[in-house]
């Protein structure tokens, strides 16, 4: 089984954002893989190994779009266990030119060349938070899609997968034919959320976290290839910022929260009345 997994780098989500003149200052950003994409990598690895730490079968290919130093994050993914990586860079891959549909077009071209059985993406990245690329990629390819996965079980014949999806009413179960595009949510890294019984048996379970690169993995990753591609090589037109279908005009910090109003509770009955009055007359929520 061949799995293509997307890897986007984002500024460390725990760091404060520096915004100047309506733009984000990323000059000192500490880059890392976005969490949902880490989960996507973990999902792909679990689908191709004989239980935790077991032998691998099949191929996991990581793909990213961006400048050369994204190679650092891709090297980390190779150290986790992915087999090889593709980095799409060069003219037309700047952030301003690449909105969701442009990214989906690049990925569709990569999928057309790699012909994977499954594409796994994080459901969204923690920078743009737009939650679109997986669905668009499936649309461009005309493949079945399953978004927000809480679990995935490969069919014994390798031609379909049964998944559960996180939806508003609870969890929805469905079957998708392969090849398909799936996007993963938080619960996908549960102990038994990823099942490939034909390969790993029914009892296989993993740690409830994505794996860290081992020293052996880091050494092995140095020898794994990262193929650098330009848009022209992928036969994708260079995206033009003037032609982007969505544009970021400016960025700002959210408005500060209003001060909290404390109701003194010396007299519980009066405090209750006052609280009810405030909720009704000022906050207008009851």
């Amino acid at each position, binding site marked *: 089984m061949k799995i293509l997994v997307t890897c986007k780098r984002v*500024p460390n989500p*725990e760091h404060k954002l520096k915004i100047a003149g309506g733009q984000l200052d990323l000059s000192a950003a500490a880059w890392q893989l976005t969490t949902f994409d880490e989960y996507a990598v973990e999902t792909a690895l679990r689908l191709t190994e004989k239980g935790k730490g077991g032998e691998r079968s099949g191929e996991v290919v990581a793909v990213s779009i961006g400048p050369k130093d994204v190679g650092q994050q891709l090297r980390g993914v190779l150290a986790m266990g992915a087999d090889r990586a593709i980095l799409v860079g060069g003219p037309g891959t700047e952030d301003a030119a690449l909105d969701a549909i442009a990214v989906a077009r690049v990925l569709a071209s990569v999928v057309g060349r790699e012909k994977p059985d499954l594409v796994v993406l994080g459901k969204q990245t923690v920078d743009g938070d737009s939650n679109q690329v997986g669905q668009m990629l499936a649309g461009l390819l005309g493949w079945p899609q399953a978004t927000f996965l809480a679990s995935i079980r490969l069919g014994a014949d390798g031609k379909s997968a049964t998944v559960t999806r*996180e939806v508003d009413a*609870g*969890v*929805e179960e469905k079957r998708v034919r392969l090849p398909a595009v799936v996007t993963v949510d938080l619960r996908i890294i549960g102990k038994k959320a990823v099942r490939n019984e034909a390969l790993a048996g029914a009892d296989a379970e993993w740690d409830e976290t994505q794996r860290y690169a081992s020293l052996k993995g880091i050494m092995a990753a140095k020898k794994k290839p990262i193929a650098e591609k330009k848009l022209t090589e992928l036969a994708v037109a260079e995206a033009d910022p003037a032609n982007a279908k*969505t544009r970021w*005009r400016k960025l700002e910090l*959210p408005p500060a929260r209003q001060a909290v109003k404390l109701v003194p509770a010396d007299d519980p009955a009066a405090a209750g009345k006052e609280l009810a009055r405030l909720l009704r007359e000022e906050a207008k929520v009851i």
Partner: protein
Amino acid sequence: MKFLVFIEQRDGKIRKASLEALSLARKLGGGPAAAVLPGKGVTALANDLGAYGAGTVYVADRDDLALYSNKGYVGALDAAATKCSPDAVLIAATAMGKDVAPRFAARHDVSVLADVMDLRVEGDRLVAWRPVYSGKARAEVDCGAASLQIATTRPNVFAAEAVSGAPAPAVETLDLGEVAPKPRSRRSSTSPRRTSSCRAAGASRGRKTGR
């Protein structure tokens, strides 16, 4: 500006988030908007949409749309868009809306203003504020060069305003042909989850992750 709004229903009840999107479309468009309502046994619900701003409701009422399927529901939305050629499409940013909107957008070679918290019209462009970086910042975004403008609206942000005495909408049935597949998904019951503003802590490293 002509709006088309995707209406989501669950268990025979229109979801409030869709009514919010419909009210917003009426406000921004300065008059009744078109709506599309896919599902099974949903025709009877179409009249209720008039009060919230629907002038025309395109109904796709079929057995094979009883359960949500991306192909069937996006097919219904696309069929309605073909009929009314809207300038803009609004969809509530629910789990279903987030599954539907980008796939529909890909058919039209455009992107989506996702999960917007504020939406306005400038000239012929939709302009929105939306949360980014897990809510640590907000971005002002527009639809750039998109021919068809699409936005998903965050639930519980916009008001669902019913106007009494609004005329009943014109109801048109969509002929989807064979686009909808047989339903294969089933909904297993668990407790309802919050639709919006719901943020879960990153599972393993205590990271905040945007939801």
